[in-house]
């Protein structure tokens, strides 16, 4: 559980992200500089869209992204949140179409690599291939954990889980607690936690009354993160 929620876990520090360190070196190498494009996507823009043909993959250098796919009644289901050090589009590595959409919640800077170019880089730099294997293995594990949470946790617990995941990716530490400014609309939290909108609103009020969070216009503060994590550990889950 700590792997998903911990704000300061070692391998989350961008500077020590081995895959990106390697990628930054490759991007500056004159032999491979043409294989990697730098892209900027404005807030609200799409990096990839569900069911569109795969054109390439993104390695995020800066910014905040929401990854989602379509659910019933034109609603969407948020699969995960991404920020610097994350990869977008790689679940479609050997597919014709992207399985989900990725939208920029704020301005995004990323390296974009076309499939054929990625193939060349993986052949040329074996260490890069190994690092990519490791990075994808971590992503699979995170999805496995989410699969379990979505099936075992109650609605309230799923909302707490969603808040903790959002704070992990998009949160900023302040004196008042962990500040979250993105992906905090009730609709987004409901979508991320697979809970109805009404239940989400009700639960967030309850959490505020219990002093775990503070809701202000356009922001949420997580005042007591360890206590929220303990709530999950006590109820349905023990350790991961």
């Amino acid at each position, binding site marked *: 559980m700590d*792997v998903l929620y911990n704000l300061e876990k070692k391998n989350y520090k961008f500077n020590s992200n081995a895959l990106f360190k390697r990628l930054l070196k490759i991007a500056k190498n004159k032999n491979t500089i043409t294989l990697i494009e730098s892209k900027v996507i404005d807030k609200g823009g799409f990096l990839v869209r569900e069911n569109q043909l795969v054109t390439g993959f993104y390695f995020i250098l800066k910014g905040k992204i929401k990854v989602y796919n379509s659910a019933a009644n034109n609603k969407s289901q948020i699969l995960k949140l991404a920020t610097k050090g994350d990869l977008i589009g790689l679940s479609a590595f050997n597919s014709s179409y992207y399985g989900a959409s990725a939208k920029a919640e704020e301005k995004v800077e990323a390296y974009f690599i076309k499939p054929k170019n990625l193939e060349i880089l993986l052949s040329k730099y074996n260490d890069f291939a190994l690092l990519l294997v490791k990075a994808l293995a971590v992503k699979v594990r995170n999805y*496995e954990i989410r699969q379990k949470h979505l099936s075992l946790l109650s609605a309230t617990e799923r909302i707490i889980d969603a808040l903790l995941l959002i704070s992990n990716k998009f949160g900023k530490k302040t004196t008042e607690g962990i500040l979250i400014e993105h992906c905090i609309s009730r609709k987004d939290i409901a979508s991320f936690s697979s809970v109805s909108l009404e239940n989400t609103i009700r639960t967030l009020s309850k959490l505020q009354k219990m002093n775990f969070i503070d809701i202000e216009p356009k922001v949420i503060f997580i005042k007591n993160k360890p206590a929220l994590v303990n709530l999950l550990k006590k109820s349905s889950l023990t350790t991961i």
Partner: protein
Amino acid sequence: MFNQYSKHSFKELNAKLKKSITNNVKLLAQNSKTKHLFYTNYYYKDDILVEQGKEVDGIYFIIKGKIKIFNVENLKSTILRLGSTGDIVGLSSLNFEYYWTSIAALDNVEAYFISRKNLKNILKDKPKLAFLLINYLSLNLQYFELRHKHNSLFSAKGKITEALLLIANEFGKNTEQGIELMECVQRKELAALANTTYETVIRVLKKIELKGAIKIENHKIIIKDKEYLLKSLKKQCNLSEDSKSNACSYLDLLY
């Protein structure tokens, strides 16, 4: 290597990839320079290949047999994935200290085990294996993205129908009567795979049997009308008439 413009379905890609992995790994395990890196392990039904919470020592390539990957918490079990020949297990725990899931054999299993250290060394020398692992992990991600979507999209009946189709896809045997499912058909296991309760599984299976789509016999389920099961899932996707989402057009490709 790239199937980017291939029209192959998820099911076909998965099958091709698993065959390629099996062939490559068998060659490496027989090659005099690399065979010392692999250990061949044999398991009987219900044996545990990997135990949740134990220290990670390596990964397994399934050469023969059927497995299930699951997690148990407070006596509640979630089956995350089913696997068979060509699947790789333990990979998602590669960067961590402890295995997060358990892996159990559903029948006689033959697997090659390779330690973390040896895997790293072999990947340095054999880039093709690294490509295959990247392909494999990517398909895994796709699988989970679809499962997450279905978790919210389908009712309990839909989730149980999907579970039957997943088992059929992985373990089903074509017979004159239909697609025979012998593994993972205990009500408790179906509930763990479909993320519903035991009682709901019993109720829903009876309903589907009354429609004639399946036949329940001792220790097995026969899918007599797969099209009916697929249609009932597609119905659940088209909940609003003006839905622009073609989210469920892939169902034929998935199962």
